[in-house]
């Protein structure tokens, strides 16, 4: 998983570099575009994702203490925040497109939609992983995801790997939030 995480970071670094380079070329256009973004929703999303990261981290703590009930509850809260994040983001997009600010308007909005779309894909991938973690914590009668038969205890390493990915998604959002919403 660390191999994957480093790869993701590398890909996103390329995106940030391109974004900032282009932003350097015509700052006025980007600034104008940025004013039209609502920072409030951006902050709200950041808070939501941070709380979901906290819950997932606490879930890992609980799993280490073999307290499966609490761990599942934390996991559910974390997943819930993730879904909430996606809803808020979708709402923001809808508002933007209804205000006739589609991606094809100009470069800034293309970047904005591309970054947020890519990040949404990572969030959905993360949610999928959280579902797998949930099945790991309370296995259905059928086998768990790629689990060797007979492994009774929920595998802590598997939970940690999933949590790592979720934190990376959160960290990436923090960077995107800063660069897209707040940067001058």
């Amino acid at each position, binding site marked *: 998983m660390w191999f*994957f995480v480093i*790869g993701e970071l590398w890909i996103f670094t*390329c*995106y940030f570099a391109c974004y900032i380079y282009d932003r350097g070329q015509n700052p006025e256009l980007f600034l104008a575009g940025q004013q039209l973004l609502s920072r409030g929703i951006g902050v709200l999303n950041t808070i939501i994702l941070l709380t979901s990261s906290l819950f997932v981290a606490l879930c890992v703590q609980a799993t280490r203490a073999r307290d499966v009930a609490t761990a599942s509850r934390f996991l559910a809260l974390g997943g819930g925040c993730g879904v909430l994040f996606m809803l808020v983001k979708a709402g923001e997009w809808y508002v933007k497109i209804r205000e006739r600010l589609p*991606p094809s308007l100009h*470069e800034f909005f*293309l970047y904005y939609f*591309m970054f947020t779309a890519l990040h949404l*894909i990572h969030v959905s991938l993360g949610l999928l992983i959280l579902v797998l973690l949930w099945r790991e914590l309370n296995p259905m009668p059928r086998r768990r995801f790629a689990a060797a038969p007979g492994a009774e205890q929920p595998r802590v390493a598997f939970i940690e790997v999933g949590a790592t990915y979720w934190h990376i998604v959160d960290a990436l959002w923090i960077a995107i939030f800063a660069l897209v919403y707040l940067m001058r």
Partner: protein
Amino acid sequence: MSGSALTAVAAPSASVETLRLPSRKLDQWICYWSIPFFYTLFGLIFAALGRIMPPPSPTASVPDILEYMQRPGLRVGMALLALSLGLASLSSGVIVVQMKRMEGVSPALAYAYLTALAVAGVPGCLFPGFVFALGGFRPEYAPEIHVMLYDLGFLSFVGSLGCFVVQYVVFAVAIFLDRRTIFPKWLGYLTIWALVTELVAAPIWVTRTGPFAWNGLLSFWQGTAIFVGWEFCLCVCLHRAIKNQPLEELGCEG
């Protein structure tokens, strides 16, 4: 597997040990070596001969487009492409054989991979080839028809994403679910990156400038770089998978 039952019954006389082949996996090696051969030929055709990769700018002026479409190398390259595209299906054959060896994974994923590649061949590769050849074939077309062919060729070449997305998803899922680790897990993660680059190539339909255009840094260059890397790693892992395939697995069922 009804296939193997049938062969076992119908071939009582054939004893597989009498194979006089140089290596028991000759057919897989033939398919395997078709991958590097085809992709170097593919690179040669598209980069050197047709100069389609690296693509010219989408905002090229009309005279440049007309001049670009009339280059004779373009049509000869497309003819060679039409000639050699069949080799791509050879590569999918051997990958499907290895995918069917996976445990805990039904052959559905292998067949999905096979079909995805069979579908990807036409809209992603041969159809743009024909479109470029059409442009070169008739110089007397009106300029706007040439521009249309130019766009159609590049957009369908760089922009046909769906077939490859499905191929990568199926391949990654098979690798992660497989308990016999025919292919290493990091190849699964690399496949997910390749999937991400396909998604990043989506905005080439929206914009014609900047890093997301069809010759842009992110949509094209990063996608091509990761695709070439993925292809190289696939060859390495496939080589290892074929090499340590136990011999008794070969024979009728295969």
